[in-house]
């Protein structure tokens, strides 16, 4: 119910995930699922607390030199800024100002609803602007790491790809986004390379409005990897997908 892939039983994975015993792709699926499913999030949190007690049970005195080494190491390590999240309102004390600022931004551009539906934690203004102008955002997941969000522009019907944590397409290849209809037909919506970008690694590619695409008949979006100039029909396995 909480998953774009009902065939993958996220609930069954929560235990293994709390023990870091899932495969990388599954960990991503769990991460996304708990982002939208409060009950699953709560169960995962309780398992993580339980796993921590397994950790305490293994406690033993660290070697005496470790403390000084660690303190020296952090002395030359810059801290990362907080990720200003879509769940800003739920964040606790200590980041009040940043969280408040994020809320104002989110409210101002009117993306609260969209941001709640989607699994990312975009920090770029560009990303925020794309999301603000979208009447629909779909998050595609699959066999590769990361996720691909596709935003459909409210005013112009253009599609924009927001790829986060997706490996850049290898030289000579590209990612291609496909619009899938109920009869299994596919139509190319454009190409993107998923080069790194943004504070959290999100890259943004505007694909424009697909010619004579009937979005009412779409059933799914899919991404494959194709030769550099793209293909008329998908040739590679589906890397990321989601129902439309």
């Amino acid at each position, binding site marked *: 119910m909480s998953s774009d892939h009902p065939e993958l039983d996220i609930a069954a994975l929560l235990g293994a995930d709390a023990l*870091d015993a899932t495969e990388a792709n599954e960990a991503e699926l769990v991460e996304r699922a708990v982002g939208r499913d409060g009950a699953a999030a709560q169960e995962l949190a309780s398992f993580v607390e339980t796993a*921590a007690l397994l950790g305490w049970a293994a406690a033993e005195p660290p*070697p005496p030199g*470790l403390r000084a080494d*660690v303190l020296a190491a952090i002395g030359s390590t810059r801290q*990362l*800024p907080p990720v200003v999240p879509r769940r800003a309102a739920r964040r*606790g004390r200590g980041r009040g100002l940043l969280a408040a600022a994020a809320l104002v931004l989110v409210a101002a551009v009117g993306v609260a609803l969209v941001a709640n539906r989607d699994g990312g934690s975009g920090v770029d203004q560009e990303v925020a602007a794309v999301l603000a102008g979208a009447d629909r955002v779909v998050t595609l997941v699959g066999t590769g790491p990361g996720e691909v969000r596709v935003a459909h522009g409210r005013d112009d019907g253009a599609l924009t790809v927001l790829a986060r944590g997706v490996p850049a397409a290898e030289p000579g290849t590209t990612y291609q986004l496909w619009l899938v209809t109920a009869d299994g037909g596919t139509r190319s919506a454009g190409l993107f390379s998923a080069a790194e970008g943004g504070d959290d690694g999100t890259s943004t590619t505007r694909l424009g409005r697909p010619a004579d695409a009937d979005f009412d008949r779409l059933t799914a979006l899919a991404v494959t990897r194709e030769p550099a100039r793209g293909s008329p029909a998908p040739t590679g396995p589906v890397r990321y997908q989601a129902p439309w």
Partner: protein
Amino acid sequence: MIDGPEPRARRRGRGPSDPDLRLLGGPADRGATADALLARVALGDRDAFARLYDVISPAVYGIAVRVVRDRAQAQEVAQEAFVELWRTAARYDRSRGSATSWALTIAHRRAVDRVRRETASRERAARSARLDLTEGEPANETAEANLDRQRVRHALDTLTPAQRQSIELAYYGGYTYPEVASLLQIPLGTVKTRIRDGLIRLRDALGVGE
């Protein structure tokens, strides 16, 4: 050790008026202490970090030793985990769990990443033979660690042997559940179920979330 930085850092904050330092009465106090310290670490407070180190380093190091099985490597893993904790402290999301569980998750992931990079299956097989929590305690362990160990041991005793084996292989052995399935020659779904059901029992036996 007497003249090291540790006593100085502690002295500065110690006192009945400092709620951070009603330390080490048990897991609940320890948790509250770590929560308060981590909030300050997120703001760049190095003293708070040093004190957080004092609270959680036995667990961080112990996890690393259990999973990687090599003390020199475990020390590296523990150091990496602490540096990551420092770097990412501002990204801690308390809605996902307590500060200690977050910190120990980082430590466990670091340890697991280390062993998963080892391709030598020989070493992994050797590790798997030595997972039992009831095997010898470390020398000079603290009274507190002993208490934790007793509690968890009792809780583990409430599991079926099959549940316990799967959880120990996954957590202390650092195996993925497909690896556990392969080691035990049972279906993937069975492993997932054993781990989840076992964690539910452990959680209830340990009173997590109460």
